[in-house]
């Protein structure tokens, strides 16, 4: 747990498990909403093809991450145990939801006139 090379134990960040889980739940909620909204937007815009669709999803995920990063005062490790959580967590998990709403909006707007 604590290797002898650690410079100082007391300056290591300490996390409350409950707060960490709340943060992760908030992130998940934001990502779910993003999959819903960006899927709908992609469908209404009429994007088609893997390339366009996924570039749009990645770009919107990145935009959300940047906003959350600014919200966290550019200090991710204050809220999450590792800095990558804010950027990659649940992006792949919500890709199916994105596909679903992309298909739905595309179908409603561009297929059924």
């Amino acid at each position, binding site marked *: 747990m604590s290797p002898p090379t650690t410079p100082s*134990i007391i300056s290591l960040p300490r996390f409350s498990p409950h707060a960490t889980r709340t943060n992760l739940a908030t992130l998940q909620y934001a990502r779910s909403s993003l999959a819903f909204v960006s899927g709908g937007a992609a469908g209404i815009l009429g994007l088609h093809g893997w390339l366009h669709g996924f570039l749009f999803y990645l770009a919107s995920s990145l935009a959300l991450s940047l906003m959350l990063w600014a919200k966290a005062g550019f200090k991710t490790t204050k809220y999450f145990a590792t800095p990558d959580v804010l950027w990659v967590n649940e992006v792949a998990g919500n890709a199916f939801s994105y596909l679903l709403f992309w298909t739905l909006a595309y179908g409603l707007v561009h297929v059924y006139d």
Partner: protein
Amino acid sequence: MTQDSQQIFLDPAIRDWVLIPIMLVMVLVGVLRHYATQLLTSVPKGNFKGVRESAALMRARTLRSPAGSVLTYEAFQARVRYLAAAFEKGTYLKNPNASATPANPMSDPAGMEAMMEMLKKNMAMIVPQTLIMSWITFFFSGFVLIKLPFPLTLRFKAMLQRGIETADMDVTWVSSLSWYFLNLFGLRSIFTLILGQDNAAGTDMNQMNMMGGMMPGQGATQPMQQPAEVLNMFKSEKEFLELAQWESALKGVEIRVLEMYGVREPTISLTEKKRL
């Protein structure tokens, strides 16, 4: 395979009576399953010794975490010695006389209960999905339902255009069964939005991981644990405790206080950089 290579006009009635109902039914079934699972899941029976066993592990983890530095050195050492001795002797074991050989889970009532829980969850998962799938294949097969906005290879044609025997149609035109599958995997975020994080509605691949990594100390919620496993956990925890380092929380406190109130320029140390 451009967008306008094929233009098919679909009857709006298909949208109103197939596309939207399938989605609605799947959302509602998910919500129903969430609440049914809550009803079926019985509260795990509190067991004093089981709780004590997991609480001892949690206490040892807290002690060797950075939080242990608030204690004085003597207090820290005393706790380490006490807990290490207790782990060595197995004082806190739920069942100190358990044999090392894993008992048959069928004969153990706690294991039986856990297996019933798993069975109930699986049944709540499989039964509605089978019903919906047969409902869809029975009523809504044989016509094109929607166009996917992304191209797929011809390999998927047999699967996605089940019941439509048209050799030349683009693979992106799919039947209702593929809409079902898209819903099955894609509705997870909707369930998160309407039911909250820990819902039991959809096919949660994440939930499994979360359960495993949530709180290692919550041994009381894992009735499937074998006594030998707990013994090993105690042994390794004892070793961790003996290696645990201690440093006073008061070390360098005057510098940190001065930095906190802006009297002193903050020194960006190595650990500070890591934190940023």
